[in-house]
């Protein structure tokens, strides 16, 4: 780990001043992703700013819907009374993430800012990574890529976005509240997460010195009948091979509205709008699900070792829709 200065500002204004005082400054909350990346020397901040004193921990219902403070810890959000009934997909995604110790530490904002688990990105001995160095090449495209993405890839980067929470939030139409010394703005999660394209080093629509202050989930009928199912190489404490977040608005046995996002398969959490459209207006049955699954692989670009993800995704998604539809 390279040396860095450490500051714990006690006000929001001082926090932004500290974060903008150096181009490599990094904010730290739980540290579960940043400390690891600093130890791997992938992140080399010269200043680490502790943002834990900021008063952004509440989980509350507001006029806009559900608001989750960015410094709330994953375990505390998952244990929020009533949340498993109102937003089951969110609680299931949180509890499928990492392990209890990490969920006790990791903040909601940090979870959304976590970086890919691509082994080439994290290995300090590998220089061939366009996320680490501009135009250095991508070792994964012709190398080990079993766990990499099939959606949203480019010839520069095929790394998978690792967050479960972000997949659930995408299925709930979440937006982020971003604050900086210039004030406050909002960004839809789907637009906040960037595709790698020709600039894989740029992962988020965020400016230096800006922080995620909260996540907002609009009040609507989609949260109650929702599920998150995650498929991985071992039963727990593992990143997703594929995952599916499904939120349904069922009326009279028919799908009135649907939101479907999938994880473990995209360079960012991936929304499947054509599958949603194939469900709306119909009851959920085997024939309809099979028809809808024909739309899953549209745009998918499997690599040499991850072609299995296409079929695994179809089966996982089918099961998740079925189980979300079965919630009484």
């Amino acid at each position: 780990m390279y040396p860095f200065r450490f500051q714990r500002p006690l006000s929001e204004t001082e926090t932004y001043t500290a974060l903008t005082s150096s181009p490599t400054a990094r904010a730290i909350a739980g540290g579960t992703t940043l400390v690891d990346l600093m130890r791997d020397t992938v992140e080399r901040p010269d200043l680490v700013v502790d943002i834990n004193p900021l008063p952004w921990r509440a989980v509350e219902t507001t006029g806009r819907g559900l608001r989750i403070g960015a410094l709330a810890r994953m375990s505390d959000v998952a244990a929020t009374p009533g949340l498993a009934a109102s937003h089951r997909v969110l609680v299931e995604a949180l509890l499928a993430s990492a392990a209890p110790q990490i969920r006790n530490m990791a903040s909601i904002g940090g979870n959304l800012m976590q970086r890919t688990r691509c082994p080439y990105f994290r290995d300090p001995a590998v220089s061939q990574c366009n996320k680490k160095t501009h135009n250095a090449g991508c070792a994964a495209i012709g190398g080990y890529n079993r766990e990499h993405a099939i959606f949203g890839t480019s010839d520069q980067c095929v790394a998978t976005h690792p967050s479960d929470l972000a997949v659930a939030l995408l299925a709930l139409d979440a937006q982020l509240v971003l604050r900086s010394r210039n004030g406050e703005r909002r960004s839809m999660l789907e637009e906040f997460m960037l595709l790698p394209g020709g600039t894989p080093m740029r992962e988020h629509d965020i400016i230096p010195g800006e922080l995620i202050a909260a996540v907002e989930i609009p009040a609507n009928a989609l949260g109650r009948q929702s599920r998150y199912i995650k498929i991985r190489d071992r039963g727990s404490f593992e990143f997703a091979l594929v995952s599916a977040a499904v939120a349904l608005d069922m009326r009279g046995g028919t799908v009135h509205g649907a939101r479907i996002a999938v994880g473990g398969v995209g360079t960012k959490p991936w929304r499947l709008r054509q599958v949603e459209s194939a469900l709306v207006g119909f009851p959920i049955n085997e024939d309809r699900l099979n028809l809808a699954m024909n739309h899953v692989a549209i745009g998918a670009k499997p690599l040499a070792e991850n072609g299995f993800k296409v079929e695994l995704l179809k089966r996982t998604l089918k099961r998740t829709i079925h189980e979300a539809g079965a919630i009484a």
Partner: protein
Amino acid sequence: MDDVTRRHFLHGTGIAGSMSLLDPLGGQALAKPSAHALLHAPALAPAHAKTAPPPPPPSPFAVPVSLTVNGQKHDLVLDPRSSLLDTLREHLGLTGTKKGCDQGACGACTVLVDGRRVLSCLTLAAVASGSDVETIEGVADAHGKLHPVQQAFVDHDAFQCGYCTPGQIMSGIACIHEGHAGTDEEVKEWMSGNLCRCGAYVNIVAAIRDASAKS
């Protein structure tokens, strides 16, 4: 041999040399034992036992860190890079908390911070400043009577090499306190952050279920 602890024995037998590869401060902290020391390790042990390793050179960016560990307050000045794990082991001499992977993947470094189980390897000591920390050294009572989870690990033979055990016990204490030890399946899921490469899982689950039932 009464005064010879496991750690001194390892040092005295020359394993310290290889351990320093795993331990970034070990090379500075531990001199290679002489032949004389090897022959007379038990005699040297008591004096060595009470000497904490010397601290690393001060960092130009050093920050004050205040921690209450097992009820005792410590005011330290640390390099901001110091993890809570290295602080416990290298600065406070509390070597019960183990360094397994040092990347948040194994749970051997689990401690309680303000009553919650966390990974001390991914916790910067500076971020934890002001917190209450409880380690494996603090769980037995003042008379040395084992904590019920410690006793259950003994009763159920819930370890082989023992390296993951302090982390398993700290995590198990929290798991029971959280109310996540009601069934074997629940324990397996909520203890998934603690790996045991010896594969003592069946007995670990039994120990935690037993301690939970008695609590």
